[in-house]
């Protein structure tokens, strides 16, 4: 199927129906392997058993930023190419992104209390991720406030692209400012600084969470297309009555 065909919502729905069972199976397998590796992973010499919190905190943090990046590409699709599925992709990704950003903040605070002695500190990394979470909530509120989908799409796309400025701030906050949060230890130029016994389960769990996002996102996009179809049919019904 040529890529351009996916611009047709009906063809996109057919594709989702075909790939979703495979994605669900891949997600379940990745989680089974990831959780088994996480359980078997040794305690860290400094963090002790609390290093196991990293196996949910780091994937959630990755997804919080990754999903906003996906929404930013979709926002360009809405504003520049006017792709019919771009707004659907952005709108349905936002609640999932908000959920994972919340998980990142919650798991981080559960790690912070025993390791730092506090649930929260206003350092640049934590604050910029909190800003990301609030921006997700703002976008969801915007989509729910404006009834006309095309007007909501343009406003949300502009807000999404403005919000994308926060992504490099999140990434480099630990380099630009003196933060309590540790510097980058996985995605860095010199390679990961984590021992393979911890790094392997971390990467497998990150893959599992990413597959979960893709699965949920495609399913939510299908729901949104059906919702818009229902809305159109109801408008036609109202005009015909």
């Amino acid at each position, binding site marked *: 199927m040529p890529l351009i065909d996916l611009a047709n919502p009906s063809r996109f729905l057919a594709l989702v129906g075909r790939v979703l069972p495979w994605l669900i199976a891949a997600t379940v397998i990745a989680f089974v392997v990831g959780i088994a590796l996480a359980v078997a992973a040794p305690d860290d010499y400094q963090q002790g058993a609390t290093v196991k919190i990293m196996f949910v905190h780091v994937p959630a943090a990755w997804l919080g930023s990754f999903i906003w990046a996906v929404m930013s590409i979709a926002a360009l699709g809405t504003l520049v190419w006017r792709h019919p599925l771009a707004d659907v992709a952005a709108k349905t990704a936002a609640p999932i992104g908000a959920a994972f950003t919340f998980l990142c903040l919650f798991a981080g605070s559960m790690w912070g209390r025993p390791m730092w002695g506090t649930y929260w500190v206003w350092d640049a990394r934590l604050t910029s991720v909190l800003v990301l979470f609030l921006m997700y909530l703002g976008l969801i509120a915007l989509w729910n406030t404006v009834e006309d989908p095309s007007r909501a799409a343009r406003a949300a796309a502009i807000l999404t692209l403005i919000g994308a400025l926060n992504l490099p701030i999140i990434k480099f906050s630990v380099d630009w400012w003196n933060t309590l949060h540790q510097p980058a230890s996985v995605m860095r130029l010199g390679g990961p600084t984590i021992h393979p016994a911890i790094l392997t389960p971390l990467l497998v769990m990150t893959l599992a969470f990413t597959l979960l996002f893709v699965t949920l996102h495609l399913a939510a996009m299908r729901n949104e297309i*059906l919702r818009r179809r229902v809305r159109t049919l109801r408008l036609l019904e109202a005009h015909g009555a």
Partner: protein
Amino acid sequence: MQLPAHAAFIIAAYLVTVLVVIALIAWVLADYRAQQRDLADLEARGHGRKSGSNLGSKA
């Protein structure tokens, strides 16, 4: 078996993660059923699309 130090924080992090993931899955499934129900109602009233009206219902 002895629980590791700070077990409550580890359990809380995983418990909330599981709850959030279950909530996301339930939201997607419930929304799918609601949209299918609405489409079926519209089709029953003669307003459904004849072509592709049941697309996405196989997964």
